[in-house]
């Protein structure tokens, strides 16, 4: 079985570093991007990204903008939003047409094991019959 490939997008270097240590130690292949303007290019170039963990509020492009651009390019990689904002409910309405639901959002700060469970659940669902 090949490693699952994660892309971690956060303007906070410390957060992306901690997450990449955590996921690498658990057998994932991790790419980190701290510059929001470069994320779309990375997604387009990198082969076989299985999941993106992305902050929402970032200088330059927001996570929501990046998500829309990725989907508009017909790239169907699942995205998990990791956000400190306490008011992310409004984004569900904005992204409803893309099939984004409440369980695609995780609050900062988060228990890393919970995040791992969530990542594994999304990866498992992705292999389901309707994807």
């Amino acid at each position, binding site marked *: 079985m090949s490693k699952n490939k994660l892309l971690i997008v956060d303007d*906070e270097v410390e*957060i992306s570093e901690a997450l990449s240590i955590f996921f690498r130690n658990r057998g994932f292949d991790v790419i980190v991007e701290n510059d929001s303007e470069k994320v779309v290019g990375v997604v387009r170039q990198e082969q076989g990204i299985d999941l993106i963990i992305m902050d929402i509020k970032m*200088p330059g492009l927001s996570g929501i903008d990046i998500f829309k651009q990725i989907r508009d390019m017909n790239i169907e990689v699942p995205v998990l939003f990791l956000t*400190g904002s306490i008011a992310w409910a409004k984004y569900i309405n904005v992204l409803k047409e893309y*099939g984004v639901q409440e369980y695609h959002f995780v609050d900062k700060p988060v228990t890393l094991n919970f995040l791992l469970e969530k990542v594994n659940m999304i990866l498992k669902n992705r292999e389901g019959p309707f994807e």
Partner: protein
Amino acid sequence: MTLAYGFAFLSLCVVGCFILIKYAGKIKDIVKGSIRRKIALTFAAVAFTTSAIGLYFGYLGSYHLLKTIVSESIYHESFLLSRAVERIISEEIEDVRTYTDILLPSELSKNTVSPTAGMTEREKQKYFSEMDNKWEQASPEGSLHEQYLDSDISRSLEKAVKEDTGLLELFVTDAPGGLIAASGKTSGFYQGDELWWQRAIELEKNEFFIGGIEFDDSSGAYGITAALCLYNDNGDKTGVVKAVLDAKRLFKPLQSLGADQKKRIYIIDLKGDELFSPLFEGGLAQESPVIKEQFKGLIESGKSFDTLNLKGEINAKSFVAVQKIHNDFLRSSEVKWRFVMVQKNSEVFLPLKLLLIQAAVLAIVLLILLSAGIYFLSGYLSGPIKKFNTSVSRISAGNREHRVEIHTGDEIEELADNFNKMVDALVRTTVSLDELMAEVNERKRIEGELQESREYLKQKTTDLEAALEESSKTRSRMISMLDDNNQTRLKLEQSLKELKETQKMLIQSEKLVSLGHLVSEMAHEVNNPLMIISSRIQLMQMGDLKPEDREDSLGIIEKQCYRARDIIQRLLKFSKPSTTGSEEIDVNVPIEEALNLLEHQYMLENISIERNYAKDLPPVKLNKNEIEEVFLNLMKNAAEAMPDGGKITVTTSRFKDKVRVVFKDTGEGIPQRIINNIFDPFFTTKKEGTGLGLSVCYGIIKGHRGSLDYESVKGEGTSAVITLPRADKTS
């Protein structure tokens, strides 16, 4: 046999069922997959079973049919051939009788006196033993040969043997048993001690003796002995004639009578225990005693036909047919001959086996072709289902407008239509629910507005009433009040004071609103350091970090704690009422203090500062700590706008009733698209920024009743412009 095959087939079925039950799971796995695959596999399984059963029963039926036909044909052929054998032997014996009838009587009549006539039995025995010895030692040129083998009668016998290829030997003895004449040299002179002779001398005039099939030493071939007794006209016995028939030549015509190379023919003499095959190379099959025993077993059981697993030379399962050879003289001689015909099973069934193989190959080829055909055809069936599946996925992903489009005219189309109806109904319900919610919210809002208007009207009415009352009161008090201006002035001052108080409260309440907004944003901003702290601690707890990294982690955690504290402190500063701790000072003083503070840090490394202070500025009422933070922030921003170095010009000036402070940098300028956002709380373009700086500055300047503006020209730089009211114009 059929029963055995049936039993084998049944047990095969039982074993098949057992395997099916035991490996049901695995079979399910194999069949698991698309409908096409299931249909094709099921068809293949059914077709395979059907063809296998068909082939099996077809073969079984053909086998039995062929067996019946072949056994019938062999039986009839053997019957015909046995009749032929009878006829051949009869004819040959008739020939012998003819020779004796024509040749012998005239010659024998010349020599009627026997050499032993008048001798006693003892003298006869002596004479014969002497003659036997002489006969054995006689040379071909000797007188004995001349007397017996060169006589007229012997020559005519020799001529008969030469002419008739069925005869090996022919000779005559007199009544006591001594040789009279012969076609060639016999084994002995005296024949009266031979069994055949003793049987022949007892025969009536028209009877024959037939011996078994024996190897004849003198001729070197297989022969059959035939003998008859001679009578003279008076009815006295005058001698015995013996003829040896060449068995192999005798039965040669059988070959042309229908026994082809594949069938073998045997003639068995049950009495003489001999086995003879006229069509066998080498004649008697003496090397096959086992076969002989098997044949005898079959004959003794009384059957005329069977299949035997023959041993010996043939060594194969074979059809065997047995026929009796009837003849009157055979019966009288007590000779028991049987005619046996053999054909190998494998020769009979070879064409059937070839046919079975051809049929099996054809069936397999057809099976593969048909299965492939069915697989492709069943695509027509499973295609719409796949399409259906794709559409359902799209709808379930939230595409409400999408519908399933299937026009196959079958149950799947019906299902798709019904599914579309269901989706329509669901969408209608969802939409109407949304509309309902919107309506409810709209009503609530209108009700709220109505309530506000009502209260406003009520308030207005009350105010109007109060005003009317006041005016009437004023009117009544006008005269007395005109006398007392001082009292009026006091009242006016009181009103003004109240007004100011209200204004202050209003500002505070606006501040509270933005504070509420700020608090929710602050939560977000604080959550980042909290995330860093918590994840570092978790990594340490779970042992994800090397011991040497733990020290760094603690440093990171501490730094993030201070970061959280700073965010909270800035917010506290923003929310504090801003008029406390004010003093009237020259604005140049806090500027210089802020600059000193900055120059002690690394912030201004590549940046030169130009101080352009105006002298004799009017004092401004300032909260020194707050205003210093504003200046610090603005200069930090200016420095950060010039990462490669540059100049900050600080200019202070008097402007009408106000004091103006300008911080000008030589950076890139603020992009037009964000210039309207720069005072929004938490708006930032910096990677490490909180986005609080400018909004806090703005709040502080507003608190001093001043103004803060930015002017920016792309490529030339940015100016932050602050105006503050003079201290004597503040209140």
